[in-house]
């Protein structure tokens, strides 16, 4: 009887061992915790240049008008490698136009032309401009944040921010159509400054400010598009105002 049980016991033991589960492999530990992805360069008009200046600053130029019995200054911005936009009254009556960049480089001016229906002018430079802006396709809307970058008072390059307050008729009658009113600060010398939206696209060109400088008036970008399509460097620069 005992001999007969031995094979049975062996079979039970083997069957039991065969039925036991295999030891599952344990995964290797991994580092846990917060990880920060490396910043990736962004593209667009607000990217930094190797010298750390934003594109919105690099495109801004200072325009010096020598004529009309004196020297006056204004602002402008590059729309291509050799064309910049400013106000008509900035270049009016100029015997000589002199353009300098954000880093103090002087650029040779080749020709200038002014629009008839708006306080806008284009200036062609013989030297290459550092960078160029991208124009927005449409005008800004009320409440949109804006930034004005220019040379108020003929001083250093500065920027001011504000929001679009609305659209109105031009109190100076320098522009046909409506103009943009913002609460971004501006003062003499800011004329011709680009007005950027939050994406860094140009949505207007500052041409005037209220007496206390708290509000600025700008030509909307739709008018600028029209002007760029129609303006020519053969157009006469207006006389002294």
């Amino acid at each position, binding site marked *: *009887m005992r001999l007969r*049980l031995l094979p*049975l*016991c062996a079979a*039970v*033991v083997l069957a*039991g*061992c065969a039925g*036991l589960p295999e*030891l599952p492999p*344990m995964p*290797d*530990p991994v*580092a846990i*915790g917060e990880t920060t992805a490396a910043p990736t360069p962004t593209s667009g008009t607000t990217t930094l240049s190797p*010298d*750390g*200046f934003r594109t919105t600053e690099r495109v801004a130029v*200072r325009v*010096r008008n*020598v004529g009309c*019995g*004196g*020297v006056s*200054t204004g602002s402008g911005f590059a729309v291509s490698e050799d064309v910049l936009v400013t106000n008509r009254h900035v270049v009016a009556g100029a015997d*000589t136009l*002199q353009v*300098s*960049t*954000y*880093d*103090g480089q*002087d650029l040779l001016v080749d020709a200038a032309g002014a629009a008839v229906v708006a306080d806008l002018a284009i200036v062609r430079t013989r030297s290459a401009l550092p960078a160029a802006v991208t124009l927005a396709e449409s005008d800004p809307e009320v409440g949109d944040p804006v930034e004005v970058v220019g*040379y108020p008072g*003929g*001083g*250093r*390059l500065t920027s001011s921010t504000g929001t679009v307050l609305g659209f109105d008729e031009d109190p100076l009658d320098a522009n046909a159509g409506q103009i943009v009113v913002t609460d971004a600060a501006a003062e003499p010398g800011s004329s011709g400054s680009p007005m950027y939206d939050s994406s860094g696209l140009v949505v207007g060109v500052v041409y005037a400010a209220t007496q206390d400088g708290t509000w600025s008036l700008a030509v909307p970008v739709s008018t600028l598009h029209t002007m760029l399509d129609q303006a020519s460097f053969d157009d006469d620069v207006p006389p002294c105002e």
Partner: protein
Amino acid sequence: MSERPNDPAGRSNHAPDHGRPADPDQTSRQTAALEREIDLALRRADDATLGRPVRRRRPRWLIATAVVLGLALVAAGALATYLWQTTDEWMAESGRLETVATGLADERDELTGNLDQAQRDLAATEEQLREAQDRITALAEEKALTADERELARQVAGNVVSVANQLEVCVRGQGQLITALEDVEAYDPASVSEFARQVADACNQALAGSEEIKRQLGIE
């Protein structure tokens, strides 16, 4: 000793006889059973005669219980062996993972230190960049303002030359006019009057130029 039945006819002495013929197969099985019992009884009698212990048949439930207990014991042993083995493997795995975790912690500490240092370097570099940008902007402004003054001075110088020329015309004309007025009868009065008007225009232009220069220079 009991009497051993030996019926040559093959019929059992216990089989009832009711006058019916007996079944041969059944009779044969009963006969075989009786023979086994008789054989067993004889063997026990022999054992008793010879002084050997009487062999008794074990109960079936006892055998079954022993078998079950045996199987349970074997299974428990196998399970214990398995658990022992898995415990050893898990302990080894735990030790390995602890080593890896310690290495990762050291690596993390080192990386954290490097990151802190890199962030400090970045902050210092950004500060230097801001200072450099401020310096560039200030120098650009200074250069622009200097150029403004240069152009203004150039314009003032041109105006000064113009005013000087106009003053020269004015002074010369006034001298000529004084000479003419000293001998006024020798000149046509209308011509003298026209000449005086031209001299006055020249002097007025010189005065206006002078005022413009004062304005450009900020002199009231």
